[in-house]
Structure formats: C-alpha cells, structure tokens
C-alpha cells in the first residue's frame, strides 16, 4: 500500500476584494493498479483511455500538454470535461463508465495517470 498526496492551490489577487489563496490536500491509500504519468497522442476519434471494467475506485489525473488544441472527455455519452491548452483535472473516478478522450483537432499529447485505491 502506498500513500498519494494530491494538493490543489487556487489563487487570485483580483477575483474579489477578499484575496483568494487557499490550498487543499488529501492523503489517499493506493492499493491496486497504477499508471504513473504517461503520454499518449489523441486524435479526433474516440480513445478509451480507461475502461471501466479494468478498474475499481480510482483517482485520475489529466493534463493537456498542447499549446492550442482542446481535448474533450466523456463518461459514456455526454461531453463532460474540456481541457484547453495547458489545463489539468484531478478527480475520483468510480469506474462505472469508460473514460473516453478525443482531440478537437490534430494529434495533441495528453499526459495522464491513474491511481487505483
């Protein structure tokens, strides 16, 4: 069993007059499969990044490494997450549906990782 420590920091000096600057962290027990940060080229066709049948409760990290092209992600059918250039996402995934990725155009590279609890 390993411990994964994700930390998110959100900051803004002008979002509101109350300065936004906070961090949140967590300590997650990882006991099963891990794909450490890896890279794959997406295309405009569907790529099943993580098949639901292959995982149980997991934590997913995604980052669009491209400088212009948007990446789209769905969990079954509805377009749910759009990563613009340089953006990232981190979320718990219960693996009830496949995680499917596509590029809006071209073949941008996605950085991804999954940690199965």
């Amino acid at each position, binding site marked *: 069993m390993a411990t994964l420590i994700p930390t998110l920091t959100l900051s803004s000096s002008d979002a509101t007059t109350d300065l936004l600057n906070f961090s949140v962290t967590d300590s997650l027990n990882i006991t099963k499969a891990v794909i450490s940060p890896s890279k794959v080229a997406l295309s405009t066709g569907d790529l099943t990044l993580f098949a639901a049948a292959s995982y149980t409760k997991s934590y997913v990290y995604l980052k669009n490494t491209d400088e212009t092209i948007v990446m789209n992600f769905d969990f079954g059918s509805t377009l*749910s997450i759009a990563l613009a250039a340089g953006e990232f996402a981190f*979320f718990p995934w219960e693996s009830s549906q496949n995680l499917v990725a596509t590029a809006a155009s071209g073949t941008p590279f996605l950085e991804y990782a999954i940690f199965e609890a």
Partner: protein
Amino acid sequence: MATTATINITSSDLMPGSSLNVSANTTLTKAGVTADLDQKESGVIKLVTGTEYRLGPLATEMSGDAHDISSYLYICNNTTEDATYYVDWGINETMIGRLYAGDWMFIPWNASDDAAEIELEPQGGTNIIEYCFFNSDFILPTAAS
C-alpha cells in the same frame, strides 16, 4: 480576474526506487481566448441524504444558452465522518466518482448541453461540501413573478 490553479501530486512509496512528484499550473481563462474569467461563486453547503442536488448553473443560464463556456469547478468533501459518508458526483445522470471525507476534485467543466449539469448525491448522512465555481457568463434565472 486572473486566477491560477496549481496541482502537486506526490508519493514517496508508490514506486520502489522512484518517488512521484507531479506538478501542473494553469491560468483559468475564457474559452478559446486568453482573457480572464469574470465570475466566481464559492461557499459551503450541507447536503442531506436522499436527494440529488445540482451544483452550478445550467448551460441555459450561461450567456444565453451558449454552450461550451469555460467553467472550472472545485469541490471538497469536508465531512469528517467515517467511510460510510461520501458524495457521489456525476454529470448528466452518470455517476462518475465518489468524494469521501477530505477528498477533493478540480475539473474544467464543459456544459455541453443543458443535461450536462453537475450532480451531487450525498450518502451516509449529512455531508458538508466546500465548492468554488469559476466561469465567464452566468446569468441569473428570471424570477417567477
């Protein structure tokens, strides 16, 4: 409204002989441009079991039904109870994951259509949720009268 988000993911014992240290940083901007976002909503809410809640606006409430507007969502389950307390989160009636006590998530949310709403369904008892929602064009719904 320049807002930045930074993530660090670390582990000293995930892989023998190699510590994990991932870091990423992004500035939250309007869709397709480099302009800063305009609007932000944050708070803490109690969610009682037995109900499915919607968090954030529908696409119709963002810039007059213009879909694919850049929006970012942070959610943290501040519950301190045991593992029987968690919040299922999903989009468009698809349960995607579970936030247990202390778990958080951050996604650029795509309101691809009006059905693509963010849904939260607490389990186990009352869960306390901290959230922050950033977007560019949220229009309040018209009052009934």
